[in-house]
């Protein structure tokens, strides 16, 4: 058995192994990390209706994952400041490779593949210098480290590939942390988050920052619509008596639009948006706040706030055929349609922060 595993791993490393596609696995729509009742942390594949197709063990609490565009292969990241990520064959649960952050780096928990699936990009921290890094890994050859470039800011968190397949959009949260001090935020009074667009060699093409009075609004998560409109979610690190917008929309070449609910609803978010998604038809943008137990919907065209749904510990969010799907730390999986929010499944696990869409090819 050991021999066979080693043999398969060897094949995997050369890229010669026969690879299962996502369709053969039952076409999961999303990946999500979760805590299961037996105390194990697992990475699950689920359908938009809430059905869990598979769940694979993780060595520690996960955060986000990256789904390979073709192969049924996922990269599961530990929560920051984790220094490793696992490449998992989602058919067998077998570890295909282990990404270890180079000396002086740790992962932030998000990453994305190039459209051809040959490259993996990861957000990382050069913590001695306090500079954000994008790591490059060779997904075609056993995930060897190929190189790195600056992320264009401090504390890069979520990242995505633009529809052109040649541009990365990166949420540089602006917050400096160092593993010596755990998750302590070291630079709040001088933090400067930004949204950076980089080509795949690391050249900064475009950058936007919140206005100076909102420099403590950490841009952490993002999503990209098919036409290149970027939705970004923020986490307010400033005075808790203030309730600034936590959702932004940006199209390159235009100024960003910051969207907010009326004061009474906005304050319920507790300054914290955990996930952001566009609906399937792209007309609605949504953010979740686990701290406020709230999900807010906005009309993309007008920027108008359209609805608030109160859902305990809600965080994961993604598009579904009917509109949007959400998950919560309570195990709930639910749907948002034109008519309202409904829980479609109650899993016996605690869903972690994010739903990562699996490409349908």
């Amino acid at each position, binding site marked *: 058995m050991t021999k066979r595993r080693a043999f398969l791993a060897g094949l995997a490393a050369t890229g010669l192994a026969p690879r299962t596609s996502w369709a053969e696995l039952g076409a999961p729509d999303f990946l999500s990390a979760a805590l299961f009742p037996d105390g194990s942390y697992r990475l699950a594949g689920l359908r938009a209706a809430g059905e869990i197709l598979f769940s694979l063990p993780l060595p520690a609490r996960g955060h986000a994952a990256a789904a390979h565009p073709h192969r049924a292969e996922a990269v599961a990241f530990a929560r920051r400041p984790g220094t490793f990520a696992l490449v998992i064959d989602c058919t067998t649960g077998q570890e295909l490779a282990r990404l270890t952050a180079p000396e002086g780096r740790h992962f932030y928990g998000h990453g994305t593949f190039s459209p051809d699936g040959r490259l993996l990009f990861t957000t990382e921290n050069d913590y001695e210098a306090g500079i954000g890094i994008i790591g490059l890994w060779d997904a075609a050859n056993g995930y060897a480290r190929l190189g790195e470039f600056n992320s264009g800011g401090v504390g890069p968190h979520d990242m995505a590939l633009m529809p052109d397949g040649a541009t990365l959009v990166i949420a540089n949260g602006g917050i400096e942390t160092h593993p*010596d001090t755990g998750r302590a935020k070291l630079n709040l009074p*001088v933090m400067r988050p930004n949204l950076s667009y980089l080509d795949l060699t690391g050249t900064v093409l475009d950058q936007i920052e919140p206005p100076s009075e909102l420099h403590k609004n950490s841009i952490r998560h993002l999503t990209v619509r098919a036409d290149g409109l970027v939705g970004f979610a923020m986490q307010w690190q400033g005075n808790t008596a203030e309730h600034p917008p936590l959702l932004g929309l940006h199209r390159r070449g235009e100024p960003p639009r910051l969207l907010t609910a009326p004061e009474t609803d906005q304050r319920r978010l507790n300054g914290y948006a*955990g996930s952001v998604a566009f609906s399937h038809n792209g007309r609605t943008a949504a953010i979740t706040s686990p701290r406020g137990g709230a999900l807010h919907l906005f009309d993309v065209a007008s920027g108008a706030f359209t609805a608030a749904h109160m859902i305990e*510990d*809600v965080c994961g969010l993604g598009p579904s055929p009917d509109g949007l799907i959400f998950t919560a*730390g*309570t195990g709930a999986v639910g749907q948002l349609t034109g008519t309202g929010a409904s829980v479609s499944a109650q899993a016996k696990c605690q869903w972690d922060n994010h739903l990562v869409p699996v490409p349908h090819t």
Partner: protein
Amino acid sequence: MRLIACLLALLIPATLFAQDRAATLTAITDAHILPSFAELTVRTEALKTATQKDCMPASPDLQTAFHAAFDAWIAVSHLRFGPTEEQDRAFALAFWPDTKGFTPKTLSALIAAEDPAVNDPDAFASVSIAGRGFFALEAMLYDAKFAEQGSAPYRCALIRAIAADIDANADAIRADWQQDYTAKLTAPGPNSPYRSGDEAVQELFKALATGLQFTADTRLGRPMGTFDRPRPNRAEARRSGRALRHVVLSLTALRDLAALLAADHPDVAAELDAGFAHALDRAEKLNDPTFAGVADPQGRFRVETLQQAINDIRDLTATRLGPTLDVAAGFNSLDGD
């Protein structure tokens, strides 16, 4: 026993909880928050006066006043909400950690340019926060690098400007607490940032939890570094020999806040108090005022033991105090990412 307490709790009408909240909030503002900020303003006023009498860094009176005012700040440094967060007042009082060396850079730039902002309090209030507050003053008084930089009269004016700015900031925070924020915290509702007593109590619980976290992770974690690479030069206010003192002062203040938060739950209060007593005992036995000892394994181990004692209080706060105050949080809402 705990089950019985839970069942009893179910029988108590909700209004009684609301009254409990009001009593807790009033007790904490009256006995903890307002007197501590009053003490701060007295000490910062004395510091300002001391710099006016004698601005020489070696002046014993100035150094004594510096320590007393800094002590008073550390004793309120966990109360990071409301008045301290207006216009970044708290950061302007204490810009630390300074991971990229902004304080020495800002001070050097002011001195090199002989920036006239030192002659005008309003102008000085718009200088970068890295060049203001206790850590900027500490650099001017105790860092040899600044002893000879620029001209003596300018250094003197800068020291006086920093002290006056510290005092103005402390006064502004206290005035806000007296004239505005005490009412907001103790009378939640539509005119308050807190919709309910629960939210106001949660703010104070958060102040306790983040205060403990800052002391364990940052005040101790930064100099501890890793076993292979300890960082004694990263200890807080090490030039003025205050690193351990900050830990003791903050634990003392947090112990007071914890006791008031747990006042209605004597068993939890006793557990917390024992936790603080243990951590303070560890701190006082360290005999290592700047954590220089982290450089060798034995010394680092002793600091780590202190850190563990504080982490034990954090666990108690999360698992015992949080649930009794009904401020426990969910899987995702607890610790964001």
